[in-house]
């Protein structure tokens, strides 16, 4: 029985299929919200689903000069990485499916796998836009990764555990956004950087480099990458709200807290101008890291 229920949790709910559907739904929510803020109509609710189905049914054109094996496997690795990360995250307000001491670090690395795969996918092709996009994707990864990680380790320090499940339990009694506002800010903005949302969309700035690293992807590969990004959106939102917004004790809180976070992110996306890649790096290393270090200093002093 245990095997069956475990595989159901992995494949259907709350992992697997459920996660993909929620990811696409959150993706739609983000697009629709941005459209409304920008005085547009925006897509209908099933648009991301329709796009994914269309892309999945399309032939993937493998361009000249790429390693075909890498070209096809990178999207799969990216999606697999994000889905694996879901194992350790309290999805839909339920406790994580699995966990061990220090799984927070594993989750952070699994979430970076998507970005890494996108960078490799861009560098794999001969396309100039892809190459520049790949350079920018990886440059951006190196700039936000350290502050983002430090910001998520703040709650871990407070909870005295590096296991996501335990931190979430601790956070249910403590709204860490109140005690660690700087860490929350960096984590939220870092999440936007991770998801390459405006204003951190220089790696896919379409007025300069078309679609960035993924320019050459047109069919299934693109669909799988998009699914990976959608899943990462949900996972990132869940993680930040679980750690900072008083935990996720039931599905209702999950929906409310993650959507509230997405709402804030939508507003930021609508308000700001895209940063150049040098400005992104400068922002993270000059302000992001500094803020998070100040947060840590305060925490260490208070706990004394």
């Amino acid at each position, binding site marked *: 029985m245990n095997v069956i229920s475990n595989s159901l949790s992995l494949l259907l709910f709350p992992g697997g299929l459920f996660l993909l559907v929620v990811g696409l739904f959150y993706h739609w929510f983000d697009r629709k919200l941005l459209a409304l*803020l*920008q*005085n*547009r109509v925006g897509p209908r609710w099933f648009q991301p689903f329709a796009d994914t189905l269309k892309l999945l049914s399309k032939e993937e054109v493998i361009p000249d000069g790429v390693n075909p094996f890498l070209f096809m496997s990178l999207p799969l690795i990216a999606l697999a990485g994000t889905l694996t990360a879901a194992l350790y995250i309290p999805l839909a307000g339920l406790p994580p499916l699995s966990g061990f001491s220090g799984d927070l670090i594993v989750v952070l690395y699994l979430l970076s796998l998507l970005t890494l795969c996108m960078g490799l996918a861009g560098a794999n092709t001969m396309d*100039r*836009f892809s*190459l*520049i996009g790949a350079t920018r994707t990886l440059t951006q990864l190196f700039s936000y990764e350290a502050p983002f990680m430090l910001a998520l380790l703040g709650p871990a320090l407070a909870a005295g555990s590096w296991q996501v499940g335990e931190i979430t339990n601790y956070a249910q009694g403590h709204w860490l956004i109140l005690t660690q506002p700087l860490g929350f800010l960096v984590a939220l903005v870092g999440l936007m950087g991770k998801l390459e949302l*405006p*204003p951190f*969309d*220089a790696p896919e*700035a*379409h*007025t*300069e*480099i*078309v679609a960035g690293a993924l320019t050459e992807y047109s069919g299934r590969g693109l669909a799988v990458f998009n699914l990976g990004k959608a899943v990462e959106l949900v996972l990132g939102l869940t993680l930040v709200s679980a750690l900072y917004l008083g935990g996720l004790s039931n599905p209702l809180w999950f929906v409310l807290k993650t959507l509230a976070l997405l709402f804030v992110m939508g507003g930021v996306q*609508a*308000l*700001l*101008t*895209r*940063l*150049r*890649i*040098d*400005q992104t790096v400068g922002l993270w290393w000059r302000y992001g890291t500094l803020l998070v270090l100040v947060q840590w200093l305060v925490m260490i002093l208070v706990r004394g």
Partner: protein
Amino acid sequence: MNTEQILTLAEGIAKSWDWATEVSRPRPNCLDVKVNVLKELVPIIVGLRVKRLGYLSAIVGMDLGVDADELEVLYHFCPGGAVITLRVRIPRQNAVLPSLCEIIPSAEVYERELREMFGVEITGLHNAQRLYLPDDWPTGIYPLRKDFDPAVLAGMSGTGKPQKTNLSPNGFTIPIGPQHPALKEPGHFQFTVEGEIVTGAYVRLGYAHRGMEKAVEERNWVQNLYLLERVCGICSHIHAMAYSLAVEQLANVQAPPRAQAIRVLVAELERIHSHFLWMGVSAHEAGFDTLFMYSWRDRETVMDMLEGLTGNRVNYSANVLGGVKFDVTPAQTASIRVGLDFLEERARHYLNVLKNDEMFLQRTRGIGVMTRAQAEVMGAVGPTARASNVPRDVRVAAPYSAYAQFPVQMILDERGDLEARFEVRVLELFESIRLIRRILDCMPEGALSVKFPRRIPAGEAVVCLEAPRGEVLYYAKSNGTDKPERLKVRTPTICNLNSVVRLVVGHQLADVPMILAGIDPCFSCNDRMVQVIDGSERMLTWAELRQYGIDHYKRLVK
């Protein structure tokens, strides 16, 4: 220096030494210098340049026909409100002219055009690559010569590949265009980059060349009005107006005051429309899509005003030769005033955003700086030049049509960066709104048009108008029949494009689309050729195209 002083000075230069020049004054603001000895051309231009009269507005080539066996080339200099024309004649066979690139760098594009279209060999040209014509265009065939026969192009495949350029042999080249998300119209740019820094730039045009200058020679004066209105989709009115003014000058006809006022009214509404559109596009290039969406929403207001006034959103078709087509009724006046109030409030909001949004300022402040000296040397025009503190506005320097009655305040900015280009354009919005209110307040009474002759007496006319993007120059020559002998359209983008190609070097790749958009480029203005191709790659004849249009609208009505 006023126009009279400029002309006296220029006349002095042209007649100094014992140069064999013939000088005449066909119109009060025009000086016509016939340079009989080719060697004297460059010294005269150096003289003009030294006296700061060397703003070269256009080089117009003309084929005097197989019988005369000569080409005529006109150099139009437009300092202030004056027009100084230098005229040289060269033999049709073995046509050679010296290049002006060393004296006036902006002459390069005009000389390349002259070389392609008329087969004038230019000695000392820095860049002799093709600018407009396809790469598989046969050599020795010059489309604007009078004996050009389109039949020779029958064997052209139309699949010519772009030339290989050697910007830097080891560099990494980023192509932008002809199809690229940053460009809404086809143009081709190549940028070599080192990392993110641009080290070289190259431009190629002609992807939508419609051969309009040739086409006007086949149509009569009235038909051409409709053709030229379609030079550009955004500043359509200014082209029709420039053409009307040129032809009216040739025919010695003046449109009545009310018609002049209505022309200026539509021109200023068009400027508002164009500047709002530009603001959105530029913000989009910077990745600020919210400003893009908002400014395009507000642009709908002015589009509605134009539609209410003229019946059309794009090609307003306001002009006829000798006047305008429609009157402005009190009801229209009232609705325009309401719209203007809204637009003024919005423009104030945008000015606030452009001046105070820190994130946006990071992308505009100190980016793409063009000093006044650079702007003058590169021959920049319009808001691009005014943002670099170059006082160049035809509406102020040489008020045409009703601008003498409704004067304009020139908006200048000395910073010369993208922020200045944004601010100048938004401030021009306020100026246009003020002007439109003033015109509506004091609209002259009277007729809307005068009777216009069918045949135009032989002669030449040069008119300069201030389009939203800068100075537009129209040169028209009549031979006494009902068709023009030669018509030259010089649009502002071609002047400003020069500056962009030089400005982007040393900037980040991310700034390139914004600097490009900063001059408000319009490729349809530069390129003028029509070729409608359906799925079977068949060219439609005019009759078929007309029938297609009729059927299309019949389907719509059903």
